[in-house]
């Protein structure tokens, strides 16, 4: 098999909330191959955490199902697909709105999609009610700019 990507990986796990940390750490470790800055890695972790949490709370509404992640690296772009076979999103435009939450009673902030969209370069939402949801996110890791920043971060750590 010859992959069209430089590297790719897939991960399936149960929709349990303690997998939120597992998922974001695993994806960050995979994306680390592109030499991102600490800040870029934090952005990726946060976006993954938001999407996985959405699948668990909204997609499966805390029932048991599988959350799937497929991540690929091509040149300096990491693409992350996070999908579930949950209940789907009725109104995607509404769900994207900052501060909108369908679960206000759970102290949810309604910032999930806003964070994904501002921390990643591209975010696509595909959803069919009763079938599931797939989020596709891309982030370009700017290697040239990063050399300086990585040096600065190293120096800061030494200090």
């Amino acid at each position, binding site marked *: 098999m010859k992959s069209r990507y430089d590297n790719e990986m897939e991960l399936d796990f149960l929709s349990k*909330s303690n997998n939120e940390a597992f998922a974001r750490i695993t994806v960050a470790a995979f994306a680390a191959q592109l030499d991102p800055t600490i*800040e870029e890695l934090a952005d990726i972790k*946060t976006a993954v955490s938001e999407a996985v*949490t959405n699948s668990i709370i909204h997609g499966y509404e805390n029932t048991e199902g599988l959350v799937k992640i497929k991540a690929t690296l091509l040149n300096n772009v990491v693409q992350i697909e996070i999908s579930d076979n949950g209940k789907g999103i009725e109104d995607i435009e509404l769900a994207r709105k900052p501060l909108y939450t369908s679960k206000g009673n759970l*102290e949810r902030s309604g910032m999930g999609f806003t*964070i994904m969209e501002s921390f990643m370069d591209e975010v696509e939402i595909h959803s069919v009610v009763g079938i599931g949801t797939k989020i596709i996110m891309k982030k370009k890791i700017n290697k040239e700019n990063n050399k300086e920043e990585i040096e600065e971060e190293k120096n800061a750590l030494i200090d």
Partner: protein
Amino acid sequence: MKTKFEEKNNVLYLEITEEIDHHTTEKIRRVMDNEITRFMPRKIVFDFSNVSFMDSAGIGLLIGRYKLIKLLGGAAEIINANKSISKVLEMSGVLKIIPIQKEKKVG
């Protein structure tokens, strides 16, 4: 989580010592609400020194505790938030009601 109540100034320090996501917020929320209702402080200070990660679940957590302390006539502040946590805080607009106190204090 570590908590410290400063009786002289009536300030409750809430030092979170784990990553904040949907999974961990329930436990953190329970401990914080317990401490807030126990001490009835004039001010709560969220100390982020030992928090390496926070997503939007943390925003919901902070706003919820802010509502509680406001009900008791108090205020809330944040100290020692790292760069990526500050980014999430800034984006959410939560800093308008819970400001970051620049001065570093030990909680």
